[in-house]
């Protein structure tokens, strides 16, 4: 059980208070993360304020038409319908308190207003619901001491009390080590940076879905991307680890294979909306792509075939391997067996298990070397296209880029935006010819664009 405050957002650096134009939700209404809950106006600009949380609007602390200082609690969101009543019971006191504060304070004293947000009275109201949230065993957070004195932004303090984070253990990233709201979130284990491991559920949505949505500041998409990693220091030479050596051998071997590449652009709006439908059932985007490739391979056995000294070898199964980068170097290709015949839910479960065990180096050779076709996805980094190196023993590998919006103009002059994903097939020309690859891609594209529902059959 937890209550989450909606704060008056800062629409500009000079704004001290904002006017609530309209509540788009009523108390008791269900709200989704990212959904607009109210509209705040400053000057001639309207800003939709979104919920950063799935749940219910429990209470409107500041009604439409009223003004509130930046950072003030203006509404409460709870996670379940059962908590609405409890939160509402607490709310009126907050409301009257806030309004009286508002009336009393003059508009220039911003500092005082901000301070009043974390006055003991204000936090007391929230303490009760936040206590059960306290367990933060989930994260292995480093102990960090701010030499006794805790300097934190008002919002960070508020978040910390809501989330049950002890500020004494939080490293501050602000000026002079001041703890910011983001620091509290990262201490709690909410991801604030893009995980670099090259395995993801999404071909696109680079920033928006991975970063948490803080309701007032939205996504800091202007933050610089995470730094690239290095296995050694400057001037050093580091021996390849076993996995890296294995990758090297495989990649060098591919130089003996006469490869060609063929690309295709696939519209993904239908796939995305299908993904939204099945996501609640635990289906991942990786599973969808694997299934789509598996079903298409079933209709294009030539693309599932491989070169052997005796001739073209047609495997008895369709096993789709998916490349996963390993944190300590190298990459591994866990395999989803019989991808054409396995259900989306099973593929999703198996994939989660494979990735977990791959990270712990617990995969059996059969589980990463039995692929008949490989999928490599760098879409989550925003890559629009790339080409992949063919793993030995297989006939083809598909490189999947991000699904990115493209403007499409129709004949009547109207414009629309459709999401487009570029895929690039690398194939062994001894087995797979240009037309084979092209037809495979055309069929894959048809399945994804027109018929994603058939993936669940």
């Amino acid at each position, binding site marked *: 059980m937890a209550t989450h405050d909606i704060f008056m957002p800062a629409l500009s650096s000079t704004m001290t208070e904002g006017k609530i*134009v309209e509540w788009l939700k009523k108390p008791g209404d269900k709200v989704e993360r990212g959904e607009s809950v109210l*509209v705040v106006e400053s*000057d*001639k600009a*309207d800003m939709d304020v979104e919920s950063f949380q799935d749940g219910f609007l429990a209470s409107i602390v500041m009604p439409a038409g009223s003004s509130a200082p930046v950072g003030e609690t203006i509404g409460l969101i709870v996670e379940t319908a059962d908590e609405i009543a409890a939160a509402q019971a607490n709310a009126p006191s907050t409301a009257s308190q806030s309004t009286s504060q508002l009336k009393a304070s003059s508009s220039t004293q911003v500092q005082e207003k901000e301070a009043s947000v974390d006055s003991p009275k204000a936090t007391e109201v929230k303490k009760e619901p936040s206590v059960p949230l306290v367990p933060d065993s989930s994260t292995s957070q480093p102990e960090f001491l701010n030499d006794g004195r805790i300097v934190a932004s008002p919002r960070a303090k508020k978040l910390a009390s809501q989330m049950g984070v002890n500020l004494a253990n939080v490293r501050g990233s602000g000026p002079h080590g001041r703890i910011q709201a983001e620091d509290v979130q990262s201490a709690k284990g909410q991801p604030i940076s893009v995980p670099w491991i090259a395995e993801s559920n999404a071909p696109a949505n680079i920033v928006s879905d991975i970063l948490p949505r803080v309701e007032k500041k939205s*996504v800091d*998409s202007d933050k610089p991307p995470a730094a690239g990693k290095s296995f050694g220091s400057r001037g050093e030479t580091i021996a390849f680890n076993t996995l890296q050596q294995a990758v090297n051998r495989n990649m060098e071997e591919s130089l003996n294979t006469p490869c060609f590449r063929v690309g295709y652009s696939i519209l993904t709006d239908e796939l995305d909306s299908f993904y939204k439908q099945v996501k609640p059932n635990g289906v991942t985007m990786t599973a969808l792509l694997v299934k789509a490739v598996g079903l298409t391979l079933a209709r294009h056995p030539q693309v599932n075939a491989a070169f052997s000294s005796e001739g073209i070898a047609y495997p008895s199964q369709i096993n789709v391997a998916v490349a996963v980068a390993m944190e300590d170097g190298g990459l591994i290709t866990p395999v989803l067996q019989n991808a054409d015949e396995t259900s989306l839910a099973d593929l999703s479960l198996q994939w989660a298990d494979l990735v977990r065990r791959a990270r712990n180096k617990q995969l059996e050779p059969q589980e990463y070397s039995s692929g008949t076709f490989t999928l490599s996805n760098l879409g989550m980094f925003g890559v629009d296209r790339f080409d992949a190196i063919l793993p030995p023993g297989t006939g083809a590998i598909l490189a999947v880029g991000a699904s990115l*919006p493209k403007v499409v103009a129709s004949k009547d002059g109207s414009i629309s935006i459709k999401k487009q994903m570029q895929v690039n097939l690398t194939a062994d020309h001894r087995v797979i010819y240009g037309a084979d690859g092209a037809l495979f891609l055309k069929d894959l594209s048809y399945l994804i664009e027109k018929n994603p529902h058939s993936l669940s059959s």
Partner: protein
Amino acid sequence: MNKKLHSVSPESGPNINLEVTPQLAQSSSAFLFEPKNIVPFETALGWQKIFQKSLIEEPFSPQAVWLLEHFSCFTIGRGSDKKNLLFEENKSPLPVFSIERGGEVTHHMPGQVVGYLALNLSLHKKDLSWYLRELEQVLIDVLYLLGIEGKRIDGLTGVWCEDKKVGSIGIGCKRWVTQHGFSLNVDCDLIGFENIVPCGLDKVKLGRLSDWIPGIKVCDVKPLLRESVKRRFKLNWRNR
């Protein structure tokens, strides 16, 4: 830390002759649409929605700018006071649209250039006051090129020439993605404003550029606006 030390104040008129190279690191690209025909209000609204939605879902998707004219209509913001409509709502002489922007009622009509911007302010500056002042500066820069002195009035949003308001601004924003923008009266008929209290300002006098430059047409102003918007927000036009 004093934030003001780091904030950028809008450049004033004379600086506008300094050409800003569009390929600066902080430049971003946008589509520019300049429909030749007059566009129904709801059509342009639909266009903006498409881009705004896309930018919200995908912060690096295309931004867009429209320069166009509307058929006569009134629009009111979500926070607008209906008292500023000087007629009964169901007996309006013209279509009335309730839209998601700040500010009070305004009036569009042929002869007025409307500029809509679907920008992701995360790529520019996440500050709505800054954005409103920059939109004003876009108009002031254009007026300067036409030899007219445009000015702001403290505490109000918009652009005035002498004592007449020629440019209006109203925007909506969701997750720092903007919609709506500005309007500039060029050679339009101002009579429709008599049915409303424009911008909720009781004694505001409206003006149009043709009061100062007889014979000026929308097509004379559009190219200046296009360049001014491009320079002010450091945009590259993607479709040219």
